[in-house]
């Protein structure tokens, strides 16, 4: 994931040095702490190279110098374009799950059982997220909800598909048979 707009947004709010950007990123945007510091520093370097942030101040009391970054006019322009424009709606085509359904059917195996195993894995994750949502602050709860809604949508798709497995099988047989006739 690119951190470009996240870091631009944080730096526009407050000119900061790298460590501060990383700390605020963790606190405000990533409670699960998945992003490592080097990723933040390399993104900052790229933003500087592209003229989206610039060094506003260099401090060196003891140890290495600390460079404070501020956003440039170009950085603000790009940030606003992203911030106020729509995010590309994710198609979420379930390619992995759908592929497994088709391959299971071709192998003549029970799709229902496969879907049941997947449902249990999803439910397990949803249990964890429900716990996280109940124990955390609102910001964290809202993030957990995001994942919960998406997992729920996956599960609905699984039910929808489970109810149509026989029809898919018939269509697949037709494909397989017509392919045989052609060859």
């Amino acid at each position: 994931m690119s951190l470009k707009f996240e870091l631009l947004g944080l730096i526009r709010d407050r000119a900061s040095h790298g460590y501060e950007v990383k700390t605020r990123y963790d606190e405000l945007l990533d409670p699960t702490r998945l992003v490592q510091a080097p990723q933040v520093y390399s993104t900052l370097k790229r933003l500087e190279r592209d003229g989206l942030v610039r060094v506003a101040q260099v401090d060196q009391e003891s140890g290495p110098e600390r460079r404070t970054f501020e956003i440039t006019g170009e950085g603000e322009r790009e940030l606003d374009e992203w911030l106020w424009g729509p995010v590309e709606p994710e198609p979420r085509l379930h390619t992995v799950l759908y592929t497994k359904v088709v391959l299971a059917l071709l192998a003549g195996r029970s799709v229902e059982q496969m879907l049941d195993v997947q449902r249990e894995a999803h439910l397990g994750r949803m249990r964890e997220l429900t716990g996280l949502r109940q124990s955390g602050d609102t910001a964290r709860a809202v993030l957990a909800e995001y994942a919960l809604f998406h997992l729920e949508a996956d599960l609905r798709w699984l039910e929808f598909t489970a109810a149509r497995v026989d029809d898919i099988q018939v269509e697949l047989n037709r494909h397989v048979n017509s392919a045989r006739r052609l060859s």
Partner: protein
Amino acid sequence: MTSMEASPAFVRADESCPGKRGLLRASDVTKSFGPTVALHGGELCVSAGEIVAVMGPSGSGKSTLLHCLAGVLLPDQGLVEYDGQRLDAMSDAERSRLRRTDFGFVYQFGQLVPELTAVENTALPLLLERRRRREAVAVAQAWLETFGLAGLEKRRPGELSGGEAQRVAVARALVTDPRVIFADEPTGSLDSAAGVAVLDEFTGAVRSRGVAVVLVTHDARVAAYAERTVLVRDGMVTSPDTARTVRAS
């Protein structure tokens, strides 16, 4: 389709409570309505203080299983034991007494008495147990406060929002200090935000008191509040092996 072949991924649901003496246990329960087999060889074991979700498509037999577990229906075959006692060996009077003292119920629709106020509805199970009115009302009052309903005690169900009415129903299920609550689609008639709030409060209350819950739902977000989930499909109960692993860890 070859879905009937035995799969190692699945176990009978009662085996998913290994080594624990269930508070409530259904073994090989079968129930028909005329020609319709609503439940076939249903197995479920619920430990004290455990929340178990029962999921499955509409018409798969979830409510039938719940009613058999609660002694509302007697199975045609198989048996249900609560706290070591067979429900079918009890008289009707003993079973209804048990339902009033040890069980609580939350249903989706129309469970509040329209003529009674919120506090009277909540106190009803205590009044049926011939507890003193003043005492019953005080206990009911406290539960209504727990669920954020202070100030609404005098309202009748028609004057409550869907979420408020549902919380009254939940308060009523808890008012007798039951050991098991049977909840059938408890948030089925609510929008999601209200449903989440009710469930947070409900599961918080039962966990802090060690009340077991059988939670029937078709909604995965609701099932995610439970420690484990069993599936009912075409009257058969299954429980993924993975659920056992999750719980044992």
